[in-house]
């Protein structure tokens, strides 16, 4: 079976005025297996969002090759092989929760009854069944983000692309959303590429954490964390020794030097 995402020597340069170009990504290689959860982490400007946008075909690489389930990224986008969630929920404010979740289905000509069945499944998955008829402005930020995730899952994609989806949420909501995402991923069996700038978030969620650095954006390290199956990934894991070790490893990779006293966990 072909990998979910295959990135080969991809570079992306943004042209500025008269040669003042910015290299957002330089010869990046990455492979994501089906069902695997991979986080991209790094400081601002390291190109993690750019890489995600390239996979989503919202942008095209300057050089290199990129395939999603063995197809060119453009074809994968047209075939709706992935679902996507952004930092902003990006819901349509004039549509209800139901209307927002079924938007991709409606655009792709799925029938009314089938849409209704799928929406009620998804509402149950994100625990917002009682809010089906609400409008986005009547929901909290966390609820809006859950709706956006349900919308990304509407067409049962085998790949989920997420660009700091919990970045705008408070810490408590954020941890709850992470727990839910672990559960949702286990139920849908989708591969995930997850952009974040939070070390604990990346360690908690991921099978592998890809560490990136800026100027030019490139991958400096890939760390295997795999803290066990979804059943073991609950709040107690956040206080587990293995979790702290993972956080320390990612932090060392980010800063380029071993950090003394691994217990000083940055809670962001």
């Amino acid at each position: 079976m072909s990998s979910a995402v295959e990135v080969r020597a991809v570079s992306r340069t943004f042209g500025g005025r008269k040669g003042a170009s910015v290299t957002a990504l330089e010869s990046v290689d990455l492979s994501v297996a089906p069902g695997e959860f991979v986080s991209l982490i790094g400081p601002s400007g390291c190109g993690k969002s750019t890489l995600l946008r390239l996979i989503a075909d919202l942008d095209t690489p300057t050089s290199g090759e990129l395939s999603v389930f063995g197809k060119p990224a453009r074809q994968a986008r047209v075939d709706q092989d992935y679902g996507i969630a952004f930092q902003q929920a990006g819901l349509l404010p004039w549509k209800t929760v139901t209307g927002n979740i079924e938007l991709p289905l409606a655009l792709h000509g799925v029938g009314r009854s089938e849409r209704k069945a799928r929406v009620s499944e998804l509402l149950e998955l994100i625990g917002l069944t009682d809010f089906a008829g609400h409008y986005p402005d009547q929901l909290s930020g966390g609820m809006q983000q859950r709706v956006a995730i349900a919308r990304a899952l509407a067409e049962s994609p085998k790949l989920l692309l997420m660009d700091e989806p919990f970045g705008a949420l408070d810490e408590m909501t954020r941890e709850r959303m992470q727990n839910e995402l672990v559960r949702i991923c286990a139920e849908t069996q989708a591969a995930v590429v997850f952009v974040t700038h939070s070390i604990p978030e990346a360690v908690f969620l991921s099978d592998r954490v890809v560490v990136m650095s800026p100027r030019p954006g490139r991958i400096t390290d890939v760390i295997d964390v795999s803290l066990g199956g979804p059943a073991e990934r609950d709040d107690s894991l956040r206080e587990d020794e293995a979790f702290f070790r993972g956080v320390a490893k990612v932090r060392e990779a980010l800063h380029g030097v071993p950090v003394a006293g691994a217990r000083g966990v940055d809670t962001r």
Partner: protein
Amino acid sequence: MSATTATIPERALARGSAYRTVVAPIVLGVAMLGLWQGVVDGFGIEQYIVPTPTDIWHEITDNLGSIVDGSVSTGVNALIGLVVGALVGILGAIIAGVWRIFDTIVAPLVAALAVMPIVALAPVLYTMYGADKETARQIVAAVAVIVPVYINTLRGLRQVRPVHRDLMRVYAASARQQQFAVTLPTAAPYVFTGLRVASSLAVISALIAEYFGGPIGGLGKSITSSAASSNYALAWAYVFGAIVLGLVFYCAALAVEMFFTRHRSTP
């Protein structure tokens, strides 16, 4: 418990602010009317110079049928003008939103329309369409409406958020799907703001156009003919009718706007 203690001052405050926003203007209005009445009566000012509010009120009650008929006549012209002008303005803005070149081409024309006193066209239009027809007045109202609706709609069509544009690309939506799913709904509140501004303009234009000719029966004609026969209190009574008509149009447009923007508080 905390909920109830929190809501009591809020409700008291709400009641206080409602009191201020509703009662205060009414008090001011009544005081002004009283002052007007007092000054005219006290100084013995002649009725043909300034009529008193009570004189005007008598004319309103005596001629209520005529004022209502006049309002309907002018109101129908304004409404036809508003609908036609809005359709032209919205369609024009959609075309300009899709093809930028159209926007560039019509920009000078829109600027010219914006600065031109549209009612100045009325005498020409009466000659063109016949002085016994309402057509000229409806055209004047329509032309006055086009500009604010066009400008506001076009602005609205350009407010599509980048995240929504990305989303439409992710869904591989066609240009048509994107227009109906995101672009037009995003523009809707702006369209209604344009319509609210245009609604008063439509009434004013239709009414003023009557000053320059055409059939009798409308409020504008009635104001000029009452003033010409020195019946100033009656002229003021028709002006009162014009104020009510303008308010009806404005409030209707405002209600529609509020209905369509009720869920737009979230960015």
